[in-house]
């Protein structure tokens, strides 16, 4: 359902970020994308969200060729992707509830749907009592939960996580990972870029390793090194 076909990407400054990368992720899979910083993980995520176009090759999500999408269709693609960032990216002047509702408002969801769905999402991420708090009143882990609730708000088919635990301590990271597993068990496809090797080894899922823009390993049984 998500396929990279011989994808290469060379940026305008001649930096070759990806070199002939191919892989397929099936519906409902949980996949780690690992590798040192600068290896090309972020480029893969940016190609998925159509922020960048590949120099060659194709990216296919649910039978749709992402790199050939017209500009006006990119918004529709992004509604089918949920994105979680390392730095949460919450709006500081909006409450927890408003941050989640914002994602639904901007895709023009009916008011009644927003009213019903936001509490359910906050319950899922365990923040039911905090809906009126502002981001600066929350811990990092709680902020990331809000970001996760927001990413899930428009019921995407794929969840893309860019170092979701990168700013969190190990205990909090573990909570977020358990939450992601829960979401995955409910059928969500998850692609998570990380270099948290401990996490990758502890919670085993398929691992795709990228180094110097090349895919060097793709292990379904999981585990970071060895």
């Amino acid at each position, binding site marked *: 359902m998500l396929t990279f076909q011989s994808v290469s990407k060379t940026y305008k400054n001649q930096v070759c970020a990806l070199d002939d990368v191919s892989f397929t992720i099936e519906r409902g899979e949980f996949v780690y994308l690992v590798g040192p910083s600068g290896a090309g993980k972020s480029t893969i995520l940016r190609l998925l*969200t159509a*922020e960048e176009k590949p120099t060659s090759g194709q990216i296919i999500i649910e039978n749709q060729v992402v790199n050939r999408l017209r*500009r*006006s269709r990119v*918004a*529709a*693609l*992004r*509604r*089918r*992707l949920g*994105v979680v960032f390392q730095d949460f*990216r919450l*709006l500081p002047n909006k409450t927890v509830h408003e941050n989640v509702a*914002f*994602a639904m408002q*901007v*895709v*023009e969801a009916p008011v009644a749907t927003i009213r019903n769905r936001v509490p359910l999402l906050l319950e899922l991420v365990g923040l039911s009592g905090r809906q009126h708090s502002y981001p600066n009143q929350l811990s990092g882990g709680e902020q990331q939960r809000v970001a996760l609730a*927001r990413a899930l*708000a*428009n019921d995407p088919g794929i969840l893309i996580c860019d170092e979701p635990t990168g700013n969190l301590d190990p205990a909090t990271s573990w909570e977020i990972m358990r939450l992601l597993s829960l979401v995955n068990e409910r059928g969500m496809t998850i692609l998570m870029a990380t270099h948290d090797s401990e996490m990758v080894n502890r919670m085993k899922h398929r691992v795709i390793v990228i180094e110097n823009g090349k895919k060097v390993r793709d292990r379904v049984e999981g585990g970071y090194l060895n």
Partner: protein
Amino acid sequence: MRHNGGMMFASVGITLVMFIILGFFLLVTANLEYMAEDVEGKLEITAYLKDEISQERIAALTQEIALIPGVKSTIFVSNTVALERLGERLGDRKDLLASYQADNPLRHSFEVYATEGEQVISLAEGLQKLEGIAEVRYGREEVEKLMSMTQALRIGMLLLVAGLSVATLFVLMNTIRLTVYARRQEIQIMKFVGASDWFIRWPFLLQGMLLGLLGALVAGGVLFLLYSRVNQYVAVQIPFLPLIPMMPYLLQLVRNLAIGGIVIGFYGSMLSLGRYLNV
């Protein structure tokens, strides 16, 4: 938006100034054209006679002029009558002409009226050829002078408008850009959750158009007041000077300025959003 109130004020201010200048020039050129049309509509031609002309020739000329096709009527104005008329126009300063009573410097003339406006030029040319006519004057000359003046004004105005429009566009662009910059986080999140370009754009476009409209409307108000004062003054002090009546001309002017303000605001917003929307 509340973070850059000063910038907003500046952009409305500069739109205001630009539209006042623009409106002022529009009013001046429109009035000059209006005057030109007014003069153009006049059917009177004055033919001055040579100084040494004989009484017989004047009598003959009266006949000859009446026979030219297109002449409705003709009146002979002797230099004595001309001097009296001048005296009337000077009013209580009439005494200035006292020394001319003995030696009249004015010329005899015929006032010729054409049946139609289009015939004035050919009629004047015909009169010029008659023996004993020194000079022919008619409203068209004034018209041509006025026309060449409005032409120059038009070109100047066009350049001015182009320059001012670009300046306004840049100021509005900068204002919108500041707002966009202050809200770049929101825009980025909107992009990631799949908001359409138009959904993101319209509040900024609305802001730009409102700023432009506000500037134009205030300028329209200022011009309205200014013109009504000028109109009143002219009506009393220079009654023979024809000015375009206030209504409905000034309402049209304000409407056009408002449209201009909205258009500039719209393009200013579109241009300043372009880069931020390409996420």
